């Protein structure tokens, strides 16, 4: 029997993972939070029960030589899930062990090697998942199942001795405030975006003539970088609040949450209007004609035919808008809007890397979660319509 690599993608990712395991420190350990840590190699954390993580790791390497049948892909997906869970478990366990051996002030964090191996593990899982060609709803659910063990370990407190979570424990109140403020800003952006964006999209759909000026203006706004738009709004809004005291009472001013929401809404309009128009446009004319033939009024056609059929595209636009708003809210911390950006920039300005991570990681998690949620929603709506 000839040995042959059947899955070149898996083989490449596995070799990269091996290189990272051998060549890059997987954990860093420091006596306190201020000094730079020393690296710990992957080999030296592999003792006792930790060695079990090699089983799924080796299977992944072996699977590259097997035919890419459905069964093999499922086994790769399970092995990648176990690999991710195992790596994170080892990280948490080692951090706890080192905290007991060393002083309570010692800091252990994931090093480059761990991050690379985790990323590669996730890519292996994502590649196996895409090869299984599942329906969109199932694909999102399986993707969540791959991440579930990691979330469970985080929630159970197993990772509590990792440096970034010690930082979290020290500032739990700040973190929770940042989370609620971040979500508030995103939610407060989406409401005016829907209220203004959807009607504008319907208008652009009905009147061709409106499109060039409308999309022209929205495109220019979208082109202006966020930090510049926040900056440009400061002077006019501050002046407005100084002359109209009522506005100042509502919290509108040069800096703070209100200008952030105004700027984010301006950005969100382009994807929202564009997807509304595109969604309505892709409704087949024949369907509208048939509805008219059945004697439906223009209003009934709009609400019962055009809107439901446009919904998937509209939701896709809302997905882009939400993911974008979650990211831009981070920048809004620069004008005092709060949120995770405040933690991140504080970390950047004081060179505290764990603090940067504490601010960035939840933003990425929120963006990925919102993305998955809307994809699931689009899939469910499309599924519902087919039935």
């Amino acid at each position: 029997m000839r040995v042959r690599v059947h899955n070149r993608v898996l083989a490449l990712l596995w070799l990269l993972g091996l290189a990272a395991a051998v060549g890059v420190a997987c954990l860093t350990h420091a006596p306190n939070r201020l000094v730079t840590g020393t690296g710990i190699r992957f080999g030296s954390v592999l003792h006792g029960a930790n060695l079990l993580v090699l089983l799924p790791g080796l299977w992944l390497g072996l699977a590259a030589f097997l035919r890419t049948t459905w069964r093999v892909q499922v086994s790769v997906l399970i092995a990648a899930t176990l690999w991710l869970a195992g790596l994170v478990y080892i990280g948490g366990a080692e951090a706890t062990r080192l905290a007991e051996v060393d002083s309570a002030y010692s800091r252990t964090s994931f090093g480059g090697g761990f991050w690379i191996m985790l990323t590669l593990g996730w890519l292996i899982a994502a590649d196996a998942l895409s090869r299984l060609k599942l329906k969109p709803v199932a694909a999102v659910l399986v993707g969540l199942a791959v991440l579930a063990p990691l979330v469970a370990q985080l929630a159970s407190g197993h990772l509590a001795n990792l440096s970034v979570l010690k930082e979290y424990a020290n500032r739990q109140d700040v973190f929770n405030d940042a989370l609620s403020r971040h979500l508030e800003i995103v939610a407060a952006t989406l409401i005016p975006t829907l209220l203004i964006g959807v009607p504008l999209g319907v208008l652009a759909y009905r009147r061709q003539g409106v499109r060039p000026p409308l999309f022209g203006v929205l495109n220019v706004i979208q082109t202006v970088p966020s930090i510049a738009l926040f900056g440009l709004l400061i002077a006019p809004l501050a002046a407005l609040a100084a002359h109209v005291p009522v506005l100042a009472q509502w919290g509108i001013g040069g800096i703070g949450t209100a200008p952030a929401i105004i700027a984010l809404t301006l950005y969100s309009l382009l994807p929202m209007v564009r997807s509304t128009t595109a969604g309505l446009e892709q409704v087949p004319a024949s369907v509208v004609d048939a509805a008219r033939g059945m004697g439906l009024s223009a209003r009934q056609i709009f609400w019962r035919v055009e809107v439901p059929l446009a919904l998937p595209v509209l939701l896709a636009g809302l997905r882009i808008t939400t993911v974008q708003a979650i990211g831009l809210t981070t920048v809004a911390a620069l004008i005092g809007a709060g949120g995770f950006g405040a933690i991140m920039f504080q970390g950047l300005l004081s060179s505290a890397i764990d603090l940067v991570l504490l601010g960035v990681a939840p933003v990425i998690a929120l963006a990925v979660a919102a993305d998955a949620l809307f994809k699931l929603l689009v899939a469910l709506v499309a599924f519902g319509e087919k039935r």
Partner: protein
Amino acid sequence: MSRTRAGWADPLLWSGGVLLLLIFGMPLLTPLFRELFPELDRPLYLQETFPALVAAHLGIVAASSAVAIVLGLGAGVLVTRAAGKDFRGLVETVVAMGQTFPPVAVLAVAVPLIGFGVWPALIALALYGLLPIVQSTIAGIESVPESVREAARGLGMNPLRVLWQVELPLALPVLIAGIRTSVIINIGTAAIASTVGAKTLGSPIIVGLSGFNTAYILQGALLVALLAIVTDLAFDRLQTRLQRGRATVPAAAPIARATTQTARSTP
């Protein structure tokens, strides 16, 4: 999308003119800023000159975009060849996943790995800028009809010539759309990079925000905004020229262009 207007009404011409005037003539506006912000002792940002800031900003954007174009084009071409098609799904997954990350997060994550200064900015911008270029390279090459490729092969062209003389020229409009998205995102992210220690047009904004100097903020913000708008208009002009230059744009190209544009996000 936009017709090219001649003379004074050309938006590219006058916005470019205003940008140049502001870059070189900002000190002349000192009396105006003094009038607008009477409470400020120093109404003009003087730590660096504005031409120097613009040059530094454009330097970072140009260097990172050049790297992103070379790597993005390479990856896009590779996964559309027969030899690399196994990796296409993986590359598309990475691109889709990467674009849900906010650019500022990529910038912040680069700091722990690389340190402060201009390097994390360059690397983060190049990495993030890759994504739309890979996406548009794949979309552009995909938009070339199989029949055209067949015909080129029938003429006796080898695979390299098919790529160079048929696929890439036909993919160019879509490709330029991707590069446009990438460069515009990079102009904005470079401004935020002043928080990680790179000297860019964001520096007056950050200094102004931390020192409550609204005039500094306004000066930096105006220049960053105009720089992005002028660059976008220039790309728009380039795309219009390209489309006018060829009568036989593949039918799929506008659709692919629309998809790459929808994926665009603002830093």
